[in-house]
């Protein structure tokens, strides 16, 4: 309403008015406001990224600053792609990604569906459920090592209590077959609330008139669930999967503290492997090529996924 008054009085757009008043023009003010952020991001994000790409073609090592740096072309890339161990860490990462996403989507959606039944006090319980994801993954990983201790750990004790197994007969983080599950459990504990919140937002965005119409058509509850609820929540779910996928692909802090990649290298996800190459073996050039491959992978997968997401949204 006010806007039309402005237009009538001044006979011009608000932008034009702004230009006439004293002070900076909108355009220069816009640049003044945006530039510092862009400059900082270029300096601390893009410049290092370009540097990483450059290093990836060399045999540079940070711990030998005086050694001669040679340009080695694609050698680093080729040796990474043909390295069996790296494919194993990729497999470990894929295993971790798939299971965490499956579990978090199933549990997260179910919880959101239940919370949406609007029982009394659900706000309080939602807040409690949400707490873990706001904590520091490194600190969380560290104290879960305590919960996972055979004998004294709460987790083993609870499992023993429920199944009758001897709590000291298994070690979640010491056993090769259990360690991947140890990290999957903690990640699910931490991040299911995230999926839950997004699903809840999705469920609440469905207008009740759609259900009313379905009710008039005498569609069964089951049918309503599959033809209304699921398709309308799907874009939200896919967004949650995208966020979790990107985050878990670069997962580092939680796993470093929880298992450190062990036992052996069974939980050595790509980030941990990369850290080992870069900051323990100090093969800087090689690690840079590795980093570039990972970044391109995340970026590529995310772009394809976002395209699919947009298609689902448009339906």
């Amino acid at each position, binding site marked *: 309403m006010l806007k039309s008054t402005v237009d009538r009085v001044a006979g011009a757009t608000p932008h034009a008015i702004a230009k006439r008043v004293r002070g900076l023009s909108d355009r220069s003010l816009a640049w003044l406001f945006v530039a510092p952020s862009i400059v900082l991001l270029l300096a601390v994000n893009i410049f290092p990224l370009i540097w990483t790409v450059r290093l990836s073609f060399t045999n540079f090592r940070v711990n030998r600053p005086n050694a001669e740096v040679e340009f080695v072309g694609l050698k680093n890339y080729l040796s990474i792609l043909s390295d069996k161990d790296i494919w194993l860490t990729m497999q470990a990462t894929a295993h971790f990604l798939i299971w965490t996403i499956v579990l978090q989507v199933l*549990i997260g959606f179910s919880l959101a569906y239940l919370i949406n039944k609007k029982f009394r006090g659900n706000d309080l319980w939602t807040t409690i459920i949400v707490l873990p994801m706001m904590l520091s993954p490194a600190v969380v990983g560290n104290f879960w090592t305590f919960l996972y201790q055979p004998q004294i750990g709460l987790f083993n004790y609870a499992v023993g209590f429920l199944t009758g197994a001897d709590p000291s007969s298994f070690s979640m983080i010491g056993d090769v077959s259990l360690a991947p599950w140890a990290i999957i459990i903690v990640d699910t504990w931490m991040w299911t609330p995230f999926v839950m919140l997004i699903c809840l937002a999705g469920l609440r965005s469905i207008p009740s008139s759609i*259900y009313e119409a379905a009710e008039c058509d005498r569609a069964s509850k089951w049918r309503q669930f599959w033809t209304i609820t699921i398709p309308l929540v799907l874009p939200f779910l896919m967004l949650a999967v995208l966020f979790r996928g990107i985050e878990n692909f670069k997962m580092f802090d939680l796993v470093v503290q929880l298992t450190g990649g062990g036992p052996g290298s069974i939980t050595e996800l790509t*980030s941990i492997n990369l850290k080992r190459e*870069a900051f323990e073996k100090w093969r800087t050039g090689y690690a*840079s090529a590795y980093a570039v491959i990972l970044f391109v992978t995340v970026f590529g997968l995310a772009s394809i996924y976002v395209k699919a997401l947009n298609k689902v949204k448009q339906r």
Partner: protein
Amino acid sequence: MSYSVTEPSRRQKWFAGILVVGYALITILPLVWIIATSFKSPSDAIAYPPKTFFTPTVEGYVNVFTTRTRLTEEQLQAVGEPQTWYDKLVRKDGLVISGPSRFAERFTNSVIIGFGSTVLCIVLGTAAAYAFSRFKVPLKDDLLFFILSTRMMPPIAVAIPIFLMFRSLGLNDTHAGMILLYTAVNLSLSVWLLKGFIDEIPVEYEEAALIDGYTRFQAFYKVVLPQAATGIASTAIFCLIFAWNEYAFAVLLTSGNAQTAPPFIPTIIGVSGQDWPAVAAGATLFLVPVMVFTILLRKHLLRGITFGAVRK
């Protein structure tokens, strides 16, 4: 807007309530356990079966803030009677407090770097968000996407060049360096979130101010800023929490001077093996502020963690 036509029946509500409460109790259990552990004595902490009931003690908290040494009988005689309650507490095991631990220092670093980067993040973010929200910025969509995409990078992928860059600039292991780095890390969150909040403030307010003779800049800080205050506050808390929780850069780029608490807490070792109550005390002190913030942030939580991509 209500979700279903037929309000869920009492039975459905009960069923949903029980399942959700059950899940919430399982979820909160590890946290309750860690807080309880921080008040246990070292022997209670490693008792089998795990102890639910115990005599609370602040030993863990004393231990996390101090370093202790074990003395022989004669040496103990020589230092005299314990003076304070914490002296008495550690003396029971033949130990004396030999000085402060580095926990307080690390914690202070977390506070300085967390708040420093948050302030910077909000200043830069508010300005950029305002410009993106109100002006015709060339390549607006591309720039916004570029800002968001900086979040996709694994920290380790850029850690080496940042390490080299900081080394040549003298920023390695300094507060300023870490503040700058965390600001860059959180800027995408800050810009996207604040843009969402500022978009919601009607443009008419500013236009009215402009007609009253305010300059654009005056309109920005006299009209928009007060309106955006809640949004700015919650964005600040999100930035603070992310910087507070960050681990990868902290462990890779700092070694002593500017190291924050997350890399330090796991390294707390007692006189004889891992001192779990002390670790738990450190973790509790570190986690409690975040828990409080989470409760305060309830309303904006979804927006904050999804960069404003999803709204409740």
